[in-house]
């Protein structure tokens, strides 16, 4: 089949950094083409060039065999190239319907036709199985996973001939992912070309017809699904052998708890949670997205007001009024969204690293430049953060390295209880594995870890125990070999009674 879009000899540099080097690439109509590579491999640049966000330095593109240039994203959209970016592009204070039709709202007499706009939103959301999203609601009031679905609906509204999904499923719940799969299969039958970027191997296995691997700005190889093993693919991506994905879990009795939570409640969203974690333990929080897992972490970290129940940390009552209090109690929170909650993006790597540790690098009221430099060097070395100069803005780092900066910032405070809110979302395989190893090392060094993840694989691979939440409660706690995907999914849907009568 002749390609829909073909690139030849495309190169792109940013300053001294080579983002893409002489790349040839093509994607065919009616097929799902997965693009794989670590962060910084050039995937994002490839997509930005294809969708008109940036211009290549050299090389040419053809669309249906005819040469084409996209000076702006709007030009790419007009040619049928539509991209769903990793960073959400929705306006939080506009309604779902407004957002979906934002670039080309239906008009009547020159004014926006609100009713047509709403019907259009309803129709597009229905195609995604999202009838539960009210088009009149503000995007701000939707959970992240619903927002992502709105983002996809918005892209569908542009009638794509080439649809690009850049980590578009990373925030979705398992049920939504199913809907997106069905939608993609339908689009594929209709002859749409689909470029699919994801760090989740099982998604790629389930979806892709063709796979391309990128590494260091080069197109390493393209092959049909099934021609390579997962291990070969990962090796092609990182260019070296990989160790076992998850570090081994230690076999030992359960430690005495250092965090004890009894009857935790908050504003009807958290209901009578009771659990504990001990030093050296990784307790996973599982379940569907939005069942209160984030609220648990925020409540423990002093962000939420009006929390009920009792919490004690290392025997002392713990009632933080702010994250500053929580930090003093040796807690750390790796927040959900590194770009808005974890980092001050325009500030330097160094400034971000010390942002939670001013007291540790100051002598009296003044910051000690020497101590600061040592602390920053130590953090960069410990997490192997790839950074040219600590004075560079943190926004210049790849996603995985940015997340390492967030984690390093908190490790500098020497926390004894670490709360993680989906820390591996949208980061590459290599960095994920480093984070898994790091979590286990921290636990072995005596930290208690509370780990929320939307990726069940991770919970199974990393956690000593997994508490599955449903509707603000812990419905089940799994331990050891009982942590299986089936058990987590069954508990997450709160169907354990029927599925497994032994656990009545």
């Amino acid at each position, binding site marked *: 089949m002749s390609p829909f879009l073909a690139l030849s000899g495309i190169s792109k540099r940013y300053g001294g950094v080579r983002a893409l080097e002489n790349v040839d690439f093509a994607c065919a109509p009616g097929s799902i083409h997965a693009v794989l590579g670590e962060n910084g491999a050039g995937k994002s640049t490839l997509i930005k060039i294809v969708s008109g966000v940036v211009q290549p330095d050299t090389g040419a593109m053809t669309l249906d065999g005819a040469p084409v240039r996209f000076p702006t994203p709007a030009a790419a959209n007009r040619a049928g190239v539509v991209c769903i970016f990793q960073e959400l592009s929705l306006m939080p204070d506009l309604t779902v319907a407004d957002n979906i039709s934002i670039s080309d709202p239906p008009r009547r007499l020159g004014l926006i036709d609100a009713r047509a706009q709403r019907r259009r939103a309803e129709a597009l959301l229905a195609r995604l199985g999202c009838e539960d999203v009210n088009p009149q609601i503000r995007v701000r009031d939707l959970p992240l996973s619903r927002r992502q679905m709105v983002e996809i609906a918005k892209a569908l509204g542009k009638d794509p001939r080439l649809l690009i999904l850049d980590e578009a499923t990373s925030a979705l719940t398992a049920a939504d992912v199913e809907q997106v799969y069905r939608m993609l299969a339908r689009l594929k039958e209709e002859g749409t070309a689909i470029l699919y970027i994801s760090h989740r191997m099982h998604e790629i296995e389930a979806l892709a017809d063709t796979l391309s691997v990128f590494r260091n700005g080069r197109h390493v190889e393209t092959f049909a699904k099934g021609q390579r093993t997962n291990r070969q693919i990962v090796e092609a991506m990182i260019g070296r052998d990989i160790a076992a994905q998850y570090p081994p879990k230690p076999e030992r009795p359960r430690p005495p708890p250092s965090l004890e939570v009894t009857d935790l409640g908050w504003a009807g969203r958290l209901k009578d949670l009771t659990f504990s974690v001990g030093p050296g333990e990784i307790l996973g929080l599982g379940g569907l997205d939005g069942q209160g897992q984030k609220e648990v972490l925020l409540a423990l970290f002093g962000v939420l007001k009006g929390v009920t129940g009792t919490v004690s940390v290392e025997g002392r009552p713990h009632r933080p009024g702010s994250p500053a209090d929580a930090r003093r109690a040796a807690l750390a929170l790796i927040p959900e969204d590194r770009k808005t*909650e974890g*980092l*001050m993006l325009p500030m330097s790597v160094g*400034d971000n690293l010390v942002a939670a540790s*001013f007291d540790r690098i100051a002598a009296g009221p003044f910051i000690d430049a020497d101590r600061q430099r040592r602390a920053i060097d130590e953090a960069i070395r410990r997490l192997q953060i790839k950074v040219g100069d600590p004075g560079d803005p943190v926004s210049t780092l790849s996603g995985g390295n940015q997340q390492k900066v967030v984690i390093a910032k908190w490790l500098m405070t020497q926390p004894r209880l670490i709360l993680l809110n989906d820390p591996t979302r949208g980061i590459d395989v290599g960095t994920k594995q480093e984070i898994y190893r790091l979590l286990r090392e921290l636990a072995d060094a005596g930290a208690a870890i509370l780990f929320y993840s939307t990726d069940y694989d991770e919970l199974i691979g990393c956690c000593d125990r997994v508490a599955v939440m449903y509707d603000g409660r812990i419905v089940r706690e799994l331990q050891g070999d009982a942590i299986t995907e089936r058990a987590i999914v069954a508990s997450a849907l709160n169907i354990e009674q029927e599925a497994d009568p032994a656990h009545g």
Partner: protein
Amino acid sequence: MNALTVQIRPDTKPILIAAGFILVILGVGTIYTLATQGAATLLSPAYLIQQLQTGAFLGLVAAGMMLVILIGHIDLSVAWTLTAAAMTATAVGGPWAIPAGLGVGLAVGLLNGIGVAYLRVPSMIFTLGVNAVLRGLMVAQTGGFAPQTAATDAMRFIGAERVSGVPVALVVWVAVSLAIGVILTRTAFGRSLYAIGNREAAAYLSGIPTRRVTCLAFVLCSLFAALAGVMLAGYSTKAFQGMGDAYVLPAIAAVVIGGTHILGGRGRYMGTVVGVILIVLLNSVLSIMQMPEAGRQVIYGGVIIVMLLVYGRGERATS
């Protein structure tokens, strides 16, 4: 790292441009005075020191304003904070004149800080309201006339006098500037200002006491405005209605011309100093050139817009 290719940090560039523009102003003014009077008056130490003396009042207001702008807020109440402090100081008189004036600044700053940081009222609205309230209070106090009381000797000393040729006001400005330079670069409070200005949520979740820092920034801003008011009253020997009106927008302009991002998070204090000097010299040279008031306003506003356009272009090219 590399000694040959000296990298200019992006937040230094506006300072260099502004400094270059100061030289342009002096150059153009000197050509004018050479042509009309046959003397390079503008380059004489006496003239320059006089300008720095005038600039000290604006410099103090701008220094405080910068702290507030760095956290992404603004303080529009400095005009009447300055005036209220000056009027209070002259009314109280005696040894307590200066502490009373600064006390007014402290109180207004706390009010602003609590309103913005704890009650979460947008600073533009809250400080605008506080400004109006202060004006009302002062008009009620003085009956709408200039107060009859005069500045004390101590106020005159810090506002108007010179010690071995150096104006005391300039010394105060330099001292405050050094302190702020150290605070911004070397203290946790200074770092926290930048962090909050860049991303308040991330700063809060990093355990930075964002509300306390915000409150303190407003307190310092009002304190410096009050200090400027007390000194200005000393300089002009008394307080008068509207003495602060000429300081709000020039202070904001000086901060922004110096390269501080109006939405917060970026900027060096040195830039604010350069911005103040630029504005003071621009005003002075335009009046020396006997430009009519209307023309001065147009040029003054035009310069601010053009400088910001120049900065904006540079930024787009580098990002």
